[in-house]
């Protein structure tokens, strides 16, 4: 579903993403983990067409993001780590706006918006301006807006930031449910317990390069460490982090 081929992004001579190649199957939850500054957000920005790769390519559902950006954007839903929104719109208006950008008509939006507000427990806040929302409510609204056009791929950067345990469970269940219906979830996260719990495939990235990838079992073998993902992560990134 998602194919990275020799993906590289250079900023002023520094490689933020270095020759990254990956294949992510349809209907899987993929964990993209790494320390700060590893190139996770840069990769996500390239996947969503916000940044252009210096070289290499990304294909999502067969479309190349550099050549067919609009085809790709139509089928992805982005959940960024920081909930920057239009503070002067109400939650409902924001969902209308987001649906409109994806060409959804009024009939579909009339059905979809109340359903999403209900799923994310925002119904009673739907008519309030976003500026009065808490951090967690904004995050839930962003997730709702990313799902409004029923994307085939959900790209998510730190999904649990600001979510309370109830919200976090809601999101985990939602990702599992979506994956079971064929939606691919690409998830960048620091929360190793989350990656361990929901991801079928994981890539550990450091300094722009993939240091290990595969199922959690494969990672154990590559790291030569038995145990939880935290131990594997620390073992695989120890050398580079010290350096």
């Amino acid at each position: 579903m998602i194919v990275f081929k020799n993906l590289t992004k250079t900023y002023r001579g520094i490689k933020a993403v270095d020759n990254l190649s990956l294949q992510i199957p349809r209907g899987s939850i993929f964990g993209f983990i790494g320390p700060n500054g590893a190139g996770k957000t840069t990769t996500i920005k390239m996947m969503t067409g916000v940044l252009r790769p210096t070289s290499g390519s990304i294909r999502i559902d067969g479309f190349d993001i550099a050549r067919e950006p609009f085809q790709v954007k139509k089928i992805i839903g982005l959940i960024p780590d920081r909930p920057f929104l239009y503070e002067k719109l109400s939650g409902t208006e924001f969902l209308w706006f987001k649906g409109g950008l994806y060409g959804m008509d009024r009939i579909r939006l009339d059905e979809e918006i109340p359903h999403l507000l209900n799923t994310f427990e925002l119904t009673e806040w739907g008519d309030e301006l976003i500026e009065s929302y808490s951090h967690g409510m904004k995050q839930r609204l962003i997730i709702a807006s990313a799902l409004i056009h029923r994307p085939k791929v959900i790209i998510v950067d730190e999904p649990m930031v600001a979510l309370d345990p109830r919200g976090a469970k809601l999101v985990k269940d939602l990702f599992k449910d979506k994956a079971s219906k064929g939606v691919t979830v690409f998830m960048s996260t620091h929360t190793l317990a989350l990656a361990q719990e929901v991801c079928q495939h994981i890539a550990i990235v450091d300094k722009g390069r993939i240091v290990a990838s595969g199922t959690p079992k494969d990672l154990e073998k590559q790291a030569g460490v038995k145990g939880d993902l935290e131990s594997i992560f620390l073992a695989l990134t120890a050398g580079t982090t010290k350096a």
Partner: protein
Amino acid sequence: MSTFTLLIAPRFLGFRNSLRKSKGRGNAKILALCVGGLVFWAVLFFLFYKVLTYFSSQEMIGDILARHLLAMVILVFFSMLIFSHIVTALSNLYLSQDLELFHSSPATFTEIFLSRSFYTLIDSSWMLIVFGLPVIMAYGVVYHANLAYYLSLIYVSLPLMIIAASLGILVIMVLVRFFPAQRARDIIFFLSIIVIIVLYLLFRFLRPERLVDPDSFVSIAQYLGALKAPDSPYLPSHWATDLLWTRLAGYPGSQVLNHLLLWSTALALMVIDIWMAGLIYFKGFSRAQEAKRRSHVGRKILEKTVSALTRPLGPDTSSLIAKEVRTFFRDNSQWSQLLLLGALVVVYLYNFSVLPLERSPIKSVYLQNALSFLNIGLAGFVISALSARFIFPAVSSEGNAFWIILSSPLSARRFLWSKYVAYLIPMVILAEVLIIYTNYLLRVTTFMMVVSSATIFLLVFGIVALGVGLGAVYPNFKHENIAQVATSFGGMIYMISSSVFIALVIVLEAGPVYTILSAHFRGEVITRLQWVWIMGSFIVVIVVLIVAVKKPMAAGLKSLNRYEG
């Protein structure tokens, strides 16, 4: 380092760092800004120098007119300073993001209040000081003022600024005490009333229309009397005018009373502000932090209007335009600026309504049509100024939320043209209202009415395209306050481009319009060659217009396509 110094340090450190960091293009921007500012400064100086030289050559009333003009300038500056402080204080004292950090620190409320008041004073005063200087300098040069005059500028302007700041801050503290700062719509409603009152008082004090119409006075003594009484002796601006004029004209006699009045008022108001801050500032700030429920006033009207206007468009374009309209009308900073500009439009129309056309030595019908033609340019500049504030920042107004557009399937082209359409319609309506209403006041010919309405209609297409396009070429998505975008380097480039565009169209049309009008009034026949020239000029106008729409939009599109967030 004292707590007060610490609290004001971030602003200065930030300013210093941004100067240090600016290299290459950054330095070029600073240089261009300085050059632009100096040119404006020089033009203002030259204008006042010419006017004052003319005044000084007039016996008897020359000095009276010059003093009157000085009183008007100081009164206008003083009024603008008060209003500017009201608007800036709302943000600096109640809404800024860094206030949370300040209030959670061990600094006292008084220290926080004083530091934020200092910010307000600097933010509100610097531009007026910079652009007030050429006027004051022109007076100094024309009246051969000595060093004492230039020194007096410091001890006269400082208390005047403190008085304006204290009054502005006092007004905002009282307003926020009764209305939470976040519900600034209510506050701004009160502010608009204040602006209207200030404008009304200003006009009542100055009555400029009477001064160009000496016939309305029974005697010369009465006319001179009117000139001598432009302001009230109870106003600080009057004390400042007296002080400066005494230095300028070299009148003997002490000005101790005016000095005492200025400084004692400034210090007394400062004490009152600090005392009032102790009583009500924190209560107001605290209320500003509370989450509020949404106001339902006017909501239905806005919803219905937005829905009706965007229904015929595609879902993506209509979503974008609806979002644009909603966020605009809910943004306090936009509203306050809109009111200020609304007041300018009222003054603009008022000036036309009091023109004494019947008493002009030039034949009235010529004057009316000439004024109507020049009015196209004036209205163009008004629209251009409005666009600099509202349309040029339209792309930047997406702010940190621009990721939503970037990651959506909406193309940059559609995004940019949606912005264009959203702003074009209100601007066309406003421009036509300005032109048609002033033409009605001027009682112009049908030909002039058609020419000016059509020209302004076409001009707006270019002015809006320049605003949207150049706004995309120079975007700032990381601004703290959208008003900063309009005063940036790109904003200056926009104002220059827009002015050149308007001037070019006016110059191209001037000859043909004059030829047609002259032929009409003199009963002459326009020759075939003249017709060719007239048609040629209008075709060039159309070409200029097409270039003014296409080029900036194409440049904006290119810039957005290259943008990497």
